[in-house]
């Protein structure tokens, strides 16, 4: 019984750790830490306006993608 508890705790904590690790790996892969200065300064520009701008840019990108699509 004790063994089972230890095994479960080990499993659960390793699983949680793995989730965090995978999130970290994903962040590295998508280049979120590429520019350490910008990454540290990002918090300064974290306001509603900038978030809206980011969404607008995303939309514009999608639109341009559609418009720019040229079937070969």
């Amino acid at each position, binding site marked *: 019984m004790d063994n089972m508890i230890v095994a479960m705790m080990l499993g659960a904590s390793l699983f949680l750790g793995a989730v965090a*690790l995978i999130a970290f790996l994903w962040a*590295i*892969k998508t280049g979120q830490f590429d*520019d350490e*200065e*910008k990454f540290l300064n990002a918090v300064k520009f974290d306001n509603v306006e900038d978030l809206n701008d980011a969404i607008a840019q995303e939309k514009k990108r999608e639109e*341009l993608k559609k418009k*720019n699509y040229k079937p070969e």
Partner: protein
Amino acid sequence: MIQDGEHYFCCNGCQGVFHLLSDSGLDGFYQKSAGVQLTPPTQQYEDSSNFNSPAFYDKFVTKNKDAFSEVSLIIEGIHCSACVWLNEKALHKMDGVVEASINFTNNKAHIIWVDDVVKLSEIIDMIRAIGYNAYPYDASLQELHANKVRKEYYLRMAVAIFASMNVMWIAVAQYAGYFTGITQEMKTILNIAEGVLATPVLFYSGWVFFRGAYYGMRNRVVNMDLLVATGALLTYVYSIYITVLEHGEAYFDSVSMIITFVLIGKFLEVLSKKNAADTLDVIGKHLPNEVNIVKEGQIVVCKLQDVTVGERVLVSSGEKVLLDGVILKGEGSFDESSLTGESEPIFKKIGDKVISGTTSIDADIEFEATKDFEHSTLSNLVMLLESAINKKPKIELLANRLSEHFSTTILVLAFMTFAVWWAWPHSFETALMVGISVIVIACPCALGLATPVATLVGLSLGAKRGILFKEAAQLETMAKADVLLLDKTGTLTEGKPTVSTENKFQEFEYTLLYSLVKQSKHPVAKGIAKYIEKSVETLSLYALDSFSQISARGMEANYNGVMLLGGNAKFMHERGVEIGQSSSNTNFYYAINGELVALYELHDAIKPGAQELVKILRDKAIDVVMLTGDNIASAQSIAKEVGIEKVYAELTPEEKLAYVESLHKDTKVVVMVGDGVNDILALAKADIGIVMGSGSDIAVEISDVVLLNDSLHSLLGAFQIARTTFTLIKQNFAISLVYNAITIPLAMAGLVIPLVAALSMSFSSLLVVGNSMRIRYKWNRS
């Protein structure tokens, strides 16, 4: 000061930028950049339509899979995070710009746009309009590759460190159980958990070692990777076997620790490797790829590579000459310092030859190309440079030589141990276990960390003193230097003439002379201006009439009917000014209305510490040689003063290169110190090229070491740091070898228990790191 509503501006440029920003709703920039001194925008830029030319697009613009265009730019003028914000926002607001991301750390921008909607020139105009400048660079494959490798290591290390830390916690439970008793079921549970954690470490993080071992085997080299890979893999397999059989001790913790430690060492090496990619970028940046040619009476833009012999090429003032030829029309002076190192402009007229790679200072000429681009002096120079960079001799590093012998010895010892234990009656299992413990205990952790940690300490010691080593391995190379080659101007001397004596024949107004010399950018004129600034307190500038500068002669001007002349002896002779005796020094004569009033003698001062440097290096058995493009007389006099015996003067860049090559033939390790474009070939070819921080861009790029404060004291410091670091590397190796000499016999005798193995592994690594830190403290105190 310009007032505009409630705002005040220093200039029109700033005002313009302000209005542009507030019109597009980006005035939040000023809030974000609060407290940062902004530089006023500069206005003179070359025509941006060049950026739309097909030649330019060919070279720098790529199409991505969504048919968007992409370019990499370097943005000049970024000094705070608000600048990054502003540039990104301003570009995002443009129609057709899909993405603009700017890296604050290296000022490189990556821009994606739709070429049908907006042209690159408009994007660059926008960046310029808000007060920055942008120029493209070729994000070459090498740089992309280097970044990819670095990222790959981050990923592998993240996994390795995460898993090892967790394995260690579980191992604590194992060790506690080892001494106080533990049930076999519990042990198996812990073993399984460790095994689960060790698996990704071995096969994902440790993949680099398997790869390295494979390539090593193919080249028939036993390297450290092979030792790490076999050690870790055997231990892993054995531990699985133990876990399944449910008796004995598993070594999963050793598996993940070996991989993690050695991977960190390897990563430190990768991190301190020089990025060769940027070098070639800069050469490209200095080479425009289009010229104006005259065809049937019309001026057409032509790709540099397409110009054939006999075509007429136009060069206007300030432009670079890109082809060799003979002048047909026009005259003026040229800066040939990139080829000869001579800073004096050279005057050329019709019928004279122009050489590619030189720059026109004030000449608008038309010349006939006598060679096509491929055979021109300039492309020869670039080719020589590229081959010098690529064929730089590599000194085999101590670590590489040592690790091969070490790895072979350990593998042989482990196998022998296994064979002996098995032959003298023990079970296969016990024999295997002892054999593996030899490999585990001989874990090359300490050996793998010995070089990277020591060089990292060396690099940071240098960085604090303004000495930038671009690659860690250079420290070791430099410690082995046999010959030091020194350039004269700008390296041993200040490179700026200063006034040594002033002879006044008549009283005169200093302000007038000051106004005259301030008009010129010639080094002699600058030296005199500086001298006057020092000796006279209140100065103002008069507006002079009809100022003209006669190259290699002097300058003349009028002020309220008074004729002012300033220049060298030749100039005075030509103007009929009586000057009497002339000496060998650089002299500046000043005459008012044809009468000599003052004579200034100038000389190029030697930098402080030159004598000391030469003496100390001589004591360390380093040969000091001076190489210069200057004439023999001035080279000799400087050499005598600092105590250099070997002097080679009047050398072309190619001759300097040849000299370095001849030293290499005698298997000498060569350190070359220089600052100018005329040194770059030799700098690139030398084992270590050291450049003064104020040197030309290309020289700084291709060098291996940069002395930021231009001082000879830091040059000496660089030698001392290199030698200290190399001693440190040797000490670290000694520590890890002595450690192995003690522990390996114990392991072979079968006396090592898992706890001791794991602890001693960490202990030896700590010893090596600690030893490296010791030097750091010693240096920091002194």
